[in-house]
């Protein structure tokens, strides 16, 4: 297992008021994303625990692209990964942000 912790400043805070959401499942080629609104408005933290070791640079690129696209300020993402491909990771992160857009 490999642990990664990626901390990013963001342009703005994430939309919505929902405190917590979870999406996905830990299975081969899949991942779960737990997202919590617990950080200051212009910060984002993505903590990753992955079964596929040695892909740190890919994770950094995917997360940087996600932060740039969605500016999820205030959100902490905790990921349990079962070896998902980068496109699946992007999809789950986007789903998680979307779920947090609800008012409660």
């Amino acid at each position, binding site marked *: *297992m490999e642990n990664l912790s990626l901390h990013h400043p963001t342009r703005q805070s994430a939309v919505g008021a929902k405190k917590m959401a*979870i999406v996905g499942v830990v*299975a081969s080629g*899949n991942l779960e994303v737990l997202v919590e609104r617990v950080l200051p408005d212009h910060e984002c933290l993505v903590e990753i625990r992955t079964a596929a070791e040695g892909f740190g640079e890919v994770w950094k690129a995917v997360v940087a*692209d996600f932060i740039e696209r969605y500016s999820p300020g205030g959100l902490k993402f905790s990921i*349990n990964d079962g070896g998902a491909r980068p496109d699946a990771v*992007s999809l789950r992160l*986007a*789903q998680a942000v*979307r779920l947090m857009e609800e008012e409660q």
Partner: protein
Amino acid sequence: MSIAPTHMATVPGTVTSWYEASARTRIRLLLDPGSFMEFIGPEKREVSPHLKVFDLPEQFDDGIVVGRGTLGGSKVLIAAQEGRFMGGAFGEVHGAKLTGLLRAARDIGSVPVLILFDTGGVRLQEANAGELAIAEIMRAVIEAREAGAKVIGLIGGRAGCYGGGGLIAGCCSGLVVSEQGRIAVSGPEVIETNRGVEEFDSRDRALVWRTMGGKHRRLLGGAEVFVDDTGQAFRDAALMLLGQVGGFELSTLTNEQARLEARLRDFGGCADAVDIWTAQGIADAATIPALPADQFIALADRFGRISHDAR
């Protein structure tokens, strides 16, 4: 990489297949909208203490979602296994969450429990803890039933209901099953490994489905209700069964023993499920596996046995 955010949100109601749905989606399909409240949710991070020893990934809810909600306006306690995480298998935390829910039902006495099974049995990486969990859960099911709580099992997931899950299902007040929802203790590969391919060919999918699948379980009386593979069908069946199942007395168990003895006497010599269906008096028994759900339900209602006084 192009991303279209509008296509990404999960839309409740559009996912209607029980088999395809996740544990959390099944709860949403089953209960009254917005009524679910989770106990020990993923944000508590009560993960397995054993998986990290094997360098395996954990899941924040350890593969089971437990909580309370309402069904048709009445309070229920509910547990849903996630069959895609380690085959929905029972580990220490996974099992403890279900045990705790059943003990709460025992202490309350009047609120029923719905268990949405989707499991291959005990998680081998934490086998001792998992086996203990199965025993604790079986005892907790019986204690909850003694205290007056009905315990209903709903089975239609990709992992089926195998191993200790099959044993727990056998302890429930009533079961709802779909065609996909296999119920057994030893799985096809386990039987083949132990007794040889002549005994059971695990690659013969038709054999697996007609031996362990929902249709056979319904006709044998192992499950009370057979439903189509939709969230709405499971919801309707759960509501119906909650209104039907009786109390839990010594006579319930003696009636169940008599039912099982009669079943063994009548069908113990049959080599295949089709032989059993034929012996039950069903014409063209060989066509049953291919029957659409609605036609099968009509047939089962004529031939099947629902024993309200047994189980």
